[in-house]
């Protein structure tokens, strides 16, 4: 059977309780278990850092300062949160159908590449038109990339986890080929890039914030994804497929259509993240696009239990952790991979905590 594998435990569990008290109970479970897992992460990571010869308390304090301590660090955090919101959606949306997509990095890279190519083709057009076409190109390319993984799953039974990751490596190779060859700006010497967009064509900052508009795109996308999944017939159908494919088929839902559209939207979100990285941060497509946002997005979606609204605070937290990496390196002489270790521990703890759902009496609805 298609779609029966890799069900994410509890991913699509709706709050069945009718009483407000029951709703509070299940909400408390959904919040307290991940928080507990993150506390356990902090303890394990603290021990790890201590073994590596750094003071854990100083580490946590520095991380807080590097992430949220000053307005400057807030800006740094928010800049990094923008792509994370979008790459987390790339995991969270297909998860509602029971699909584990881990190739968001590829959709981001191919989206960034295609938006840069669109920007080259539209050179000379007014900025709003150029950026609009770039955004569309990025979303279409990223969407097609993940939809391909969804289609292979749907029609050929190819495991989407593996195919999406293979597609990510293929996307990175394609990007390297294009910026090295056909799309290369001859002026880029050591770091092959597409021609720079030019200052006047880049996405500016939101007024008063000094954070580029990508953050707003990400927030809007998360809210839109939530509404789509929780408040529309489409979302209901998608969640039904995630719950039980056979029942969904019996009810007359088009599983193939729901799968393809959801995967396309997921990839479009990551593709938009690539466009934002090109048009607001780097100014051109190059190897800097491969920054690991796609992989952090997987972790964020899992901690948020695949809920697009919960993605927002979790992405902010990981944006902050990423932003504080530089400070840890400078002050404590810890390698940049410290952040990767923290993410790995957090991921393991969160998954292990899946086993705790439904174990505690106090969270269960009475009746």
């Amino acid at each position, binding site marked *: 059977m298609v779609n029966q594998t890799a069900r994410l435990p509890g991913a699509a569990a709706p709050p069945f309780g009718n009483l407000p008290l029951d709703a509070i109970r299940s909400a408390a479970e959904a919040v307290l278990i991940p928080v507990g897992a993150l506390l356990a992460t902090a303890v394990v990571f603290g021990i790890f850092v201590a073994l590596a010869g750094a003071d854990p308390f100083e580490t946590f304090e520095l991380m807080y300062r590097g992430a949220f301590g000053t307005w400057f660090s807030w800006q740094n955090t928010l800049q990094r949160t923008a792509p994370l919101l979008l790459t987390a959606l790339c995991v969270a949306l297909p998860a509602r159908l029971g699909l584990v997509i881990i190739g968001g990095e590829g959709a981001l890279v191919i989206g960034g590449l295609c938006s840069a190519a669109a920007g080259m083709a539209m050179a000379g057009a007014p900025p709003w038109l150029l950026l609009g076409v770039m955004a569309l190109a990025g979303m279409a390319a990223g969407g097609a990339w993940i939809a391909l993984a969804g289609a292979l799953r749907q029609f050929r039974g190819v495991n989407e986890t593996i195919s999406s990751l293979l597609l990510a490596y293929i996307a990175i190779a394609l990007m390297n080929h294009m910026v090295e060859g056909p799309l290369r700006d001859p002026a880029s010497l050591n770091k092959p890039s597409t021609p720079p967009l030019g200052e006047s064509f880049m996405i500016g900052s939101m007024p008063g914030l000094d954070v580029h508009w990508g953050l707003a795109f990400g927030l809007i996308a998360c809210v839109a994804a939530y509404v789509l999944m929780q408040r529309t017939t489409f979302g209901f159908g998608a969640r039904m497929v995630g719950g039980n494919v056979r029942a969904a088929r019996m009810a007359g839902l088009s599983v193939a259509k729901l799968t393809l559209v959801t995967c396309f939207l997921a990839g479009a979100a990551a593709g938009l993240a690539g466009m934002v990285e090109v048009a607001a941060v780097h100014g051109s497509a190059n190897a800097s696009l491969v920054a690991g946002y796609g992989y952090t997005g997987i972790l964020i979606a899992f901690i948020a239990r695949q809920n697009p609204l919960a993605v927002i605070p979790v992405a902010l937290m990981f944006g902050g952790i990423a932003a504080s990496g530089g400070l840890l390196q400078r002050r404590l002489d810890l390698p940049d991979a410290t952040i990767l270790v923290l993410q790995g521990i957090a991921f393991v703890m969160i998954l*292990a905590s899946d086993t705790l759902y439904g174990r505690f009496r106090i969270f269960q609805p009475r009746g």
Partner: protein
Amino acid sequence: MEDLGWWGVALAVLAGAIRVSTPFLFVSLGELLTEKSGRINLGLEGTLVMGAMSAYAVSYMTGSPWAGVLVAGLAGALFGLLHAAICSLPRVNDIAVGIALMLLGTGLAFFLGKPFIQPQAPILPAIDLGWWSDLPQVRSALQINVLFILGLVLAPFLLWVLTNTRWGLIVRTVGDSADAARAMGYPVDLVRAAATMAGGFLAGIGGSFLSLYYPGSWNEGLSSGQGLMAVALVIFARWHPIRCLGAALLFGGAGALGPALQSVGVTQGYYLFNAAPYLLTLVIMIATCSPTRTLAGAPGELSITK
């Protein structure tokens, strides 16, 4: 050096197949064993990187590459144990845990391996099987590492263990039907833990080959998806050890195509040739998977093909 022209490409691909295939072979045999017990470990990618790092570090510190190979295997077994322990908790998804361990393994390897990027560790010796030839290309192609030969022996041995021994039967029973195994009194979680640890051990050794022989140094871009491609390779090989060997050689050859062409002056599309192994994996998966029937040879409990 004599110019072999396009024959040089064929020779280089063959040599590359032998050189590059060893990590694929070890990881895929390890993954095969784990999958035969009914569990899938996507974390072997992280195990491979961890194995490469720890082997290099130990070889550098002790001066013995073989100690490095052993430690890499033990590190892999430890990761396998972690995977098995978390997956044995109820309601925990083995694919997701694999992704998490992939991230944790690469993160830990990058963190701990930072001091070992510069120094040169003693690497594994190779056996010179090309002494009969005057051509330097043939000679270098037939520089064969002991680990490759070990892998050649391991594949039929694993097949024999799985089909002809009591242990093999238990692993296959657990993988095909946990209920049946439980009814017969076998401890399902324990068997899976053992199979996952053994699989991790082999993957760690595969990683040690990367840092201690080819390419033969430790850096952070050492493995890019080889552990994951091994998962696809096992599906392609239909859970058969001998076919794993053939598939590993095929993947190795695909990986050697880009550098081989570059050596005869074809530099156009170098990055595209780098994508060849991934593309090949994808095409193979499309060709061999089917939405309507269970794949022949697939363990019944395996979540990835159900």
